[in-house]
């Protein structure tokens, strides 16, 4: 069954590769040949794998997680091939890093000068963000009607956030609705950017980067070179794509009260407003231009909390308080059910409330009280999974920082590099700051950071499960039999 799904995923990637080929043809670039080669290879292998019909059409949570983890690794390998073949990125590990960074919507780059790259390469870079934002398996669910139940196990493994609610009874319809909302918002953004005077190609790439909360730009200076109108547009859309998509569905269903009553969304907007205010105050120390400070503060806050990673200024040179706030925002991340990464606002709020609850229990040891989210009590099992998520997050984070520090960079670089990759943001501080890139890391560190990105995007467990031996035990025993 897992192989069958991988086959489907590969054929879908092949179909998606048609777009950069078209872009290449429009601009008459020779590099599009390599996309065509990858497309054919991936498509043929995918079709071959699909013909191996599974003996059992159902799959359980384990299979769902493993299929998701493997799918993401496979699409990253395939997606890296055009970069490598075309010579845009001569080192394969670097090419893979760039692709993983794309699909996981991180936006951490190892490329020094993006402006010399051909259009089809740039397009593919940004397009990986768009695909990765909502998830390739959600896309799979939307286009293929699978027999048997348990599709939720795929969606659960891939969607950001602690709990996955369906909008409508069927997983397929839910997936279609999500993609329709996603596409509609992206198209709206492209239109506004074009109206704001941005060239069409750059608008499309920027919109893809924003929609997936990725952050690959088509300019070395990211968004800094564009007009204030465009910067504000990108700011607003970044924040919009960081909102739980359920809210949009509720708005579409004209249930405005419920949509705006979502506690997570309120916290999310609240955190954004407060941080912007503090940073604007802090920036007065370095510059007096209020309008400009507000714009760059809003842009950077939106970019970091939604884990997009675009930048308009080099925030590495900001005062210490502002920098620290941005690093904290990296960990908070966007809302569950959005395209953003990070720990997710709902988890933070849940843990915060659980903490308050614990304090309450110190004062009234015998009181019966449960933390609530959206008015519903958080039961012990979901609380437990949130806390375990935190524990895993910290362990993975610490181990990664230790391995990366073998390279000998300074602590801030290592710390923020891991933070920016595991939270799928992109730029960190110091040597990996907004105007720098990740090219300085060794291959080992790049592999670790890639795994961090995948782990962060897939909410840790689907990836961690691949490295847990008992996952594979049952399989081998079956074969032996």
């Amino acid at each position, binding site marked *: 069954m897992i192989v069958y799904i991988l086959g489907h995923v590969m054929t879908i990637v092949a179909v998606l590769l048609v777009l950069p080929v078209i872009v290449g043809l429009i601009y008459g670039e020779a590099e599009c040949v390599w996309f065509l080669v990858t497309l054919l290879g991936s498509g043929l292998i995918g079709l071959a794998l699909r013909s191996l019909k599974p003996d059992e059409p159902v799959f359980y949570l384990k299979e769902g997680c493993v299929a998701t983890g493997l799918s993401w690794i496979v699409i990253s390998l395939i997606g890296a091939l055009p970069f490598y073949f075309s010579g845009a990125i001569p080192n394969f590990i670097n090419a893979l890093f760039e692709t993983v960074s794309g699909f996981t919507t991180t936006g951490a780059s190892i490329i020094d000068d993006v402006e010399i790259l051909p259009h089809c390469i740039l397009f593919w870079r940004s397009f990986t963000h768009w695909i990765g934002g909502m998830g390739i398996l959600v896309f799979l669910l939307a286009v293929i009607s699978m027999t048997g139940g*348990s599709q*939720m196990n795929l969606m659960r493994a891939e969607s950001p956030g602690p709990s996955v609610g369906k909008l*409508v*009874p*069927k*997983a397929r*319809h839910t997936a*279609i609705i999500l993609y329709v909302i996603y596409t509609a918002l992206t198209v709206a953004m492209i239109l506004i950017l074009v109206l704001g005077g941005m060239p069409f190609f750059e608008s499309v790439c920027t919109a893809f980067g924003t929609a997936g909360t990725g952050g690959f730009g088509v300019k070395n200076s990211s968004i800094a070179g564009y007009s204030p109108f465009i910067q504000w547009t990108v700011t607003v859309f970044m924040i919009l794509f960081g909102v739980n998509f359920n809210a949009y569905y509720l708005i579409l*269903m004209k249930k405005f009260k419920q949509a705006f009553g979502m506690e997570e969304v309120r916290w999310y907007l609240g955190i954004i407003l407060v941080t912007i205010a503090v940073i604007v105050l802090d920036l007065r120390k370095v510059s007096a231009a209020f309008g400009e400070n507000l714009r760059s503060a809003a842009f950077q806050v939106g970019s970091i909390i939604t884990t997009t990673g675009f930048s308009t200024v080099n925030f590495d040179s900001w005062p210490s308080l502002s920098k620290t706030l941005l690093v904290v925002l990296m960990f908070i991340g966007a809302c569950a059910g959005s395209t953003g990464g990070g720990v997710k606002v709902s988890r933070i709020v849940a843990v915060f409330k659980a903490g308050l609850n614990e304090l309450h229990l110190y004062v009234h040891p015998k009181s019966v009280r449960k933390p609530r989210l959206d008015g519903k009590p958080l*039961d012990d099992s979901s609380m437990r999974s949130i806390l375990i998520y935190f524990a895993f997050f910290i362990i993975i984070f610490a181990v990664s920082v230790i391995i990366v520090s073998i390279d000998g960079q300074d602590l801030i670089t290592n710390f923020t590099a891991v933070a920016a990759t595991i939270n799928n943001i992109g730029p960190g501080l110091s040597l990996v700051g907004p105007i720098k890139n990740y090219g300085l890391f060794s291959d080992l560190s790049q592999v670790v950071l890639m795994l961090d990105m995948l782990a962060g995007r897939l909410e840790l467990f689907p990836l961690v499960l691949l490295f847990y031996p008992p996952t594979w035990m049952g399989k081998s025993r079956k074969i032996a039999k």
Partner: protein
Amino acid sequence: MLADKLGSNGSGLNIIIVGTGKVGATITAALYREGHDITVIDKNAAIVQTLTNNYDVMGIVGNGASYSVQMEAGIEKADLIIAVTGSDELNLLCCTVAKQVGHCDAIARVRNPDYADEIPYLRERLGLTMIINPELEAANEIARIVSLPRALGVSPFAKGQAELVRFRLPEGNAICDKKLMDLGELVKNIRFCAVEREGEVYIPDGSFTLRAGDTATFVASADAAVSFFDSIGLKSGNVKRVMIIGGGKAAYYLAKQLTVMGKAVKIIESSRARCDELENLIPSAIIINGNGSDEDLLNEEGLRDADAFVPLTGLDEENILLTLYAREISAAKTVTKINRINFRNVIQNLDLGSVVYPKYVTSEAIIAYVRAKKASKESGIETLYHLYDSRAEAIEFKVGEVDGITNIPLKYLHTRNDLIIASINHRGQAIIPGGNDCISAGDTVVVVTTCTGLKDIRDILG
């Protein structure tokens, strides 16, 4: 609006199922397989979680009778609500609330004997589409099997005009190893329509040969079924003495029917209070207060001489053990009720005789209704039965004026290969059709097919 379209796209109906017990889960599984959009509601989060993990359905935790929970489940856009919680009153309230808010059809489970006589009244007054009573349905089925002891199962069509009878062909019988068309007079009034052999289900034609050990299904009128069994040497002595273990609702419904039919009924029930109640409700039955799984008690009460033995305790395992014991020591016809456990393969191999599953009886009735709802105006499904573990279906269609089907002799009708027209009920008279008969408007037609999912009479054409 886009979202509306997306929310209700596809061909499935929007169905809300309240209560996820045995029956609720079975209905969810069955309707999910039919491709509908299903939302389940239950107070127990763990059960809802299990269902949403196993099937692609939406789950909501809460009280299904509450207005806000129903709104959350999308009652405004629902086509059907099915209330099958443990409480009759809650089920009725669920449907009543749903009727006020949405424009959906409503099906409620009501099984308390107190309401049994008032069901038509309740149904009409509350505007419900259907009220189901699994225990009563199961009791009806058991009563039919008990009166035709050679059969493994008996299901009625056309308001009892025709019956679908399932039996196992014993070794060395006269009709073994002969082609159906060579049986002549023997099968004149019956129609073999499905045969299970070594795990495969066949739709037989004239050249089909029956073998010993086959589980065969035929359609016939009740009288014709009895005389067919007589003529092939499977004489069925008249069942007189019926022993029932356990005095629950199903036992009550069954005992009441059997006493009306003039059988001597003996019920063994362990609760003294329930015995008193039963004694009051069915004075003509013998009520024994004792433990039904006590070997000595069973022997003392004459299990050896009983003609039929029906264990109806709440524990499936106990029912199975009791049946196995009864088959060991007596020649009684046994009917085993299985509520909960699922190992159907194991149960089939156990030689239990007839087995009745109340939860499937319920889901069959609901599927028949749901399919009929999607069918065209001129044709509808009256009854539907799953045969052989849902690998075949027997469907009774009500037929209006349909071009290409009505008034055409059957020999010119090109039906599907995996389908057989078993019976036509013409003006209250069930006939086994030959090539020259035709279907007229207003008839009901029974077809048996291994192609599951037929909705419309037109679907029978190849």
